């Protein structure tokens, strides 16, 4: 988006409206099912917070509770200095973008964008101007008379965004807004979304199951699993310093490689090779993890352990080598000109500083590390 679309003065006044959003000990029960467990998040004014997790982890439920579409079983939601825990959604001053966009099929683009102002009784003239401005911000000002069915996926997405920004709410809530777009458009809209949030400076909570979206968009990421917050931190923190096995496995593409085993004689036996460890006790069930980009394929016997090549995929900028060791499949990122034969025995080398040890049982990160031999 061109920056000259939004005047500087407009963004300034908006940014000052941004509100802090506090979620305190928020719980949701559906009968016996505990969907959200003691969720505690402080969203800073103007922050872009991403709720990340696999489907069914309670992230959408959490968002709907913040929106007021779902009743909160216990806990509170505070916007700025106002407790909105039991306030109806229409009095919360929030805007929401739905996964389906929820554009009204019988209303034109202009009527869709102007709907939040229409229901609050903004005079028509003022409304039309606001509609045009909001549409211009998402480059939809030439398609105002169209109906949603006449728009492409990306254009519908923009209309949904325009409908969200027109009211200048104190918070945006977005429920997987990009998941219905194709991969290319998704990348493009991601950039636009991030830019716009930066321009408007509105506190935003964004729900997704796509860790790349989370990494690229977020100021901070909150990773959830089974209704529980696992880790809250900047994308870099979450990526480089995962608190547990789940977070480590969820972030990154291709995901982190894991080797499971029991500690014997201060080391992890991998086939014929032994990886010496420090800070562990014998008999512990542990999982060793390292990222594909922190490892390399070397001659057999030269690495920390040996494995067999399963496939090698050339992706353009690099080669992904998949090796098999016992039942575990590991992926290594190698330079694009790397050549290897299938079913060849190779050695795997990885950086001891950039490897992680977890307790296999509860998944917790261990204060232990791999020893260079």
């Amino acid at each position, binding site marked *: 988006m061109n920056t000259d679309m939004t005047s500087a003065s407009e963004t300034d006044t908006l940014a000052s409206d941004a509100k802090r959003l506090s979620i305190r000990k928020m719980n949701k029960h559906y009968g016996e099912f505990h969907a959200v467990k003691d969720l505690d998040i402080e969203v800073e004014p103007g922050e872009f917070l991403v709720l990340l997790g696999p489907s069914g982890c309670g992230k959408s439920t959490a968002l709907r509770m913040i929106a007021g579409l779902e009743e909160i079983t216990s806990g509170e939601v505070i916007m700025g200095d106002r407790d909105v825990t039991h306030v109806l*959604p229409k009095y919360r*001053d929030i805007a929401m973008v739905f996964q389906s966009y929820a554009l009204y099929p019988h209303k034109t683009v202009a009527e869709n964008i102007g709907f939040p*102002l229409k229901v*609050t009784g903004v005079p028509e003239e003022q409304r039309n101007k606001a509609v045009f401005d909001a549409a211009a911000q998402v480059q939809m000002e030439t398609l105002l008379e169209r109906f949603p069915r006449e728009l492409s996926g990306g254009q519908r997405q923009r209309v949904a965004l325009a409908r969200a920004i027109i*009211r200048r709410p104190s918070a945006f809530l977005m429920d997987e807004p990009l998941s219905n777009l194709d991969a290319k458009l998704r990348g493009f809209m991601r950039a636009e979304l991030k830019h716009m949030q930066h321009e408007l400076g509105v506190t935003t909570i964004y729900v997704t199951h796509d860790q790349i979206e989370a990494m690229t968009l977020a100021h901070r990421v909150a990773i959830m699993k089974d209704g529980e917050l696992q880790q809250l931190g900047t994308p870099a923190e979450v990526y480089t310093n995962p608190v547990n096995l789940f977070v480590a496995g969820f972030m990154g593409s291709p995901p982190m490689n894991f080797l499971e085993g029991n500690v014997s004689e201060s080391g992890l036996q991998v086939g014929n090779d032994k990886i010496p460890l420090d800070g562990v006790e014998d008999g512990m069930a542990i999982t060793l993890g390292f990222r594909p980009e922190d490892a390399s394929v070397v001659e057999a016997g030269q690495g920390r352990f040996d494995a067999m090549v399963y496939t090698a995929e050339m992706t353009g900028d690099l080669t992904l080598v998949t090796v098999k060791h016992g039942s575990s499949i590991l992926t290594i990122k190698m330079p694009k000109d790397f050549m290897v034969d299938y079913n060849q025995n190779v050695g795997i080398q990885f950086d001891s500083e950039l490897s992680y040890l977890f307790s296999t049982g509860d998944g917790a990160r261990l204060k232990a590390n791999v020893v260079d031999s």
Partner: protein
Amino acid sequence: MSNVSNVPPRGLFARLFEPPRIGAMAPGAKFIVYTLLLAWSAFVLFPIYWLLITSVKSAADVNGGPVYIPFVDFIPSLHAWRELFVVDYADTLRAYVNSIIISLAATALAVLIGSMAAYALARIRYQPNLITILLFVLVMAAALFAIGSYGVDWRLVLVVGVGIFYFLSKAVASRVHVPLANGDILFWMISQRILAPIVVVVPIYMMFQSVRMLDTHLAIILTYAVVNLPIVIWLMYDFFNSIPKDLEESAQLDGATMIMTFREIVLPLSRAGLAATTLLVMILCWNEYLLALFLSTAKAQTMPILVAAMNAGERGILWWSMSVVIIVMIIPVVFMAIVLQRYISKGVLLGAVKG
């Protein structure tokens, strides 16, 4: 834009009509909703209650002014039930069996033929010639006129008519082609539903009379099937259109004939649609009165005729017996509804109406 009111109103009206908490209903709204729904339930149920108690009233209880509660206001008796099921059981049973045979057969026929036609219209492209159709109607009108006005024997007219139609369609229709599309055929078939039974019943009556089929099951079955054919075609056309073509195409690639595809793939996939359609057509056949009145005299009489028969003779209306017949008529419909209900996705009728 700060004119967005984000403060909930606090007046009495607001307290009555704003939900007290998220996901709940406002107390005022709740009161109004339940009042209206319960009032309508009473309006629906009271006549049915009255039906039930009338069936166990004696003639004196009915004619002596209203009594409401059995065992309190009056002593219920099963005399009407006994009369219908013990004394006159032959008549009752015959009407009951007739009704069951006729509505099952007519429904089966309508659903089978209708869904075949609907499937064909949904999947095959037809291009009938408008000229041929016009010729057909003209020849038919001329034939009927000849029979009616000049008393020509209908068998002779049939033979000559077919000959003339064949000749004309070869001569004219092969040169002039005004193609119609599937939509036109569909519209033509569905539009038959506009015909009030009274428009066609007299010729149908005469037709069955001339082939000596009045008062037979077959006559009523055929008539009911045709009357309900438009409904079947309309509902099933929409349903077939909503089934993805891939499965059928895959079956065809595997070497299945169209009939096999229809029987093995399409019909099982359409269970929900078929169930809804069957139920609807069944109810309509079961309850039909006017056509049955024309087409049956004694042997083929159905239940609705039996209802009307309770209003005959010098004894006036036998309200108690009539109530029994009406109640007995509801039972199989409820039974069918329960049996078919689990196949019916509520979207079936809706889909057709939307289309």
